């Protein structure tokens, strides 16, 4: 496992640089939107990565509640943190793209709102982890993750209906995607997934180590105090 880490790091670096070259230089310029469309190669892969990480968090939380394995909890924490970062990227790049294309920064569109609500839920998840005392954090956080997951379909249907009642904003036409664009999108998606795995892995490892240090310190203070 230890040897896989540098290999993954190199792979990530290669994919990210190739993806950057593809997104900024080799991809054809979009007909109506122009160069601003190139943000798409970062926006969409970030979204996919964030959703994958949130899903991973849910699975890890359920595994934790079932098996009470601290490693599952560390994985849940790492995936939630990295997921929030990628979700933030989505929420920042979205308006930057929307402003020149739709003429507005933000609209209460289905996907935008769903992403925002997910972001809010996972930020509250991280706040809960920060504020609860260490012993009960894993259980409370895992329970909140399940509540958040249950909320997603309800948010989806509510926004879906909310939008069908109200006027739709002007959305850049659908149409089919150029195969060269799709190719670069997929490269970037692979790059972002590798990058997320890399960061998640480091964060997970860090969490395990810091817990070991904490335990060792607690043990040490017991050992030192007992002879007195």
């Amino acid at each position, binding site marked *: 496992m230890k040897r896989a880490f540098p290999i993954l790091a190199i792979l990530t670096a290669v994919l990210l640089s190739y993806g950057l070259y593809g997104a900024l230089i080799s991809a054809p310029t979009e007909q109506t939107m122009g160069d601003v469309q190139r943000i798409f190669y970062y926006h969409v892969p970030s979204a996919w990565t964030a959703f994958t990480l949130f899903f991973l968090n849910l699975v890890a939380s359920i595994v934790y*509640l079932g098996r009470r394995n601290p490693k599952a909890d560390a994985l849940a924490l790492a995936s939630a943190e990295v997921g929030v970062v990628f979700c933030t990227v989505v929420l920042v790049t979205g308006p930057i793209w929307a402003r020149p294309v739709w003429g507005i920064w933000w609209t209460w569109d289905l996907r935008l709102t769903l992403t925002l*609500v997910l972001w*809010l*839920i996972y*930020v*509250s998840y991280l*706040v*809960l982890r920060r*504020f*609860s*005392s260490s*012993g*009960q954090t894993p*259980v*409370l956080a895992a*329970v*909140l993750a*399940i*509540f*958040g997951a*249950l*909320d997603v379909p*309800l*948010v989806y*249907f*509510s*926004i879906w*209906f*909310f939008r069908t*009642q109200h006027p739709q904003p002007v959305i850049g036409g659908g149409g089919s995607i150029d195969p060269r664009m799709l190719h670069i999108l997929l490269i970037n998606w692979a790059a972002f997934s590798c990058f997320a795995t890399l960061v998640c892995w480091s964060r997970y490892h860090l969490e395990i180590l810091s817990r070991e240090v904490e335990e060792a310190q607690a043990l040490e203070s017991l050992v030192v105090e007992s002879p007195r």
Partner: protein
Amino acid sequence: MSSSGITRATLAKDLRLEWRSKDAINAMLFFALLVVVIFSFSFDPTAEESRRIAGGLVWVAFLFAAVVALNQTWARELRNQVLDAYRVSPAPPNSLFLAKAVGNFIFVTVLEALMTPLFIVFYNLRALGPAYQLFVVAALGTWALVVNGTFFAAMSVRTRSREIMLPLLLFPITIPALLAMVEATSSILTGEFSARFWIVLLVAYDVVFTMASLFLFELVLQAE
């Protein structure tokens, strides 16, 4: 004692406590009153406008006020380690949870019953749609707030700075329910749309989160 007996006993105890101290209801009422007055000042709407925005104002005011009561739910049990006593007692956790949720439901319903006339006066409201549906929306919406609120209050009571923690946990999850309550109320007041979809959504929300709370409450209560 049967589990419904435990529910009834706990509920009666909470109601009696509230009846004698009137802590939660007074704080909620005054808080909601302040929200109504401040909103009324800052928007100064005409009758037509207020019909459109009233749904949002009413439910945001009730949501904020409900947090006051919800925060007290479990904090009250921390004194003299009552919560620890519950934990070691053989009483099923779900009957305790149900008692607390029903208690909060009663408090918030009383608040709504007292505040609604004020809203009608301040905002000059009259429903153009089927007004009886407002009662259905109020009951379902209040339960949606209260069932999640009681659950998250049990979580936030275990954290540092618990009074701030509850809204931080509750509000994101409540977004679909709040949207449904607001949209249903606005549709009924303006009479432009049918509120049926929103009522169905509220029923779904209530069922999903009541089941989830009953299923997971024991874990939260016993979390060490």
